[in-house]
């Protein structure tokens, strides 16, 4: 019987497969014989460091908080702009001061609007 050059590769592939699968098969057999599963409700429960698993994470958050968060973000950014404005105040031209004034007044108007809408009242 004569072997082709590629038939050895198939033989090697088969040997590799057996080599890889036999430890898994032995481990599986061993666990079936000597370590049978002992499942239970507590054992199968979610591991929470011994505590019982809490309620689901799919809870409703208050949509009001979203508005509150956006308003906070806007005035937070305003503070970031106000600080360099205050530092460079003496060196600024009249036009720059005017632009800054418009910016601050716009935001102040926003604050008044938010206040009038009642967003800042925490319900």
């Amino acid at each position, binding site marked *: 019987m004569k072997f082709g050059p590629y038939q050895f590769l198939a033989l090697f592939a088969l040997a590799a497969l057996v080599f890889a699968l036999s430890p898994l098969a032995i481990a599986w057999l061993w666990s079936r014989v*000597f*370590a*049978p599963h*002992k499942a*239970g*409700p*507590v*054992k199968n*429960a979610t*591991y929470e*460091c*011994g*505590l*019982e698993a809490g309620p689901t994470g799919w809870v409703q958050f208050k949509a009001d908080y979203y508005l509150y968060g956006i308003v906070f973000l806007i005035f937070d950014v305003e503070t970031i702009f106000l600080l360099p404005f205050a530092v460079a105040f003496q060196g600024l031209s009249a036009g720059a001061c005017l632009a800054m004034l418009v910016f601050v007044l716009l935001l102040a108007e926003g604050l008044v609007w938010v206040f009038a809408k009642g967003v800042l009242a925490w319900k």
Partner: protein
Amino acid sequence: MVDNELRDELSKQGVVLTSLAELYNWGRKNSLWPLQFGLACCAIEMIAASMSRFDIARFGAEVFRPSPRQADLMIVAGTVTKKMAPQVVRLYNQMPSPKYVIAMGACAISGGPFKQGYNVLKGIDRYIPVDVHIAGCPPRPEALLEGLMLLQKKIAGQRLTVGGGQPPQDAGELPVPSYGEHDLVPSKNTELWQPPVLAPSE
């Protein structure tokens, strides 16, 4: 089958024979993986035992697992408060069999100096089967190592088949106590622990 006498004689001549159970137990007792948790000051001694000076790795028990799924030894190191007891029992239930418990220190054994207190469990053996008790307050790391060696001796004598030296409670899950109105409910696992009967004085 080779009897023990013949095996001893052979081992003197340089022929080592073993049984499958002995080989398996030899591997098992030298690779105890403790559950990584500490409850009080005994845990500091347990940590010291795992560090280089005392080196619990010499006994193969250095792989402290942060999950009960991978642990087979529970070292109850410290005061078990009544608030913590349900968690300890639940963790014990979540460990795969065969599993072992070492009660380390006076508190884990009996409540220790807090025995008369209102909030401390008077011994973890009221809820889970304890294999080795280690006295001390806290026990030194050497004492923990000796307790570990005792446990290894116990494991070496166990059989492989189901029920071979395992406590009968191991078949199912132990009831997890819950915190009731005044105390833990139930206050003890009566299958594991019976209150001592005091003999009337004469």
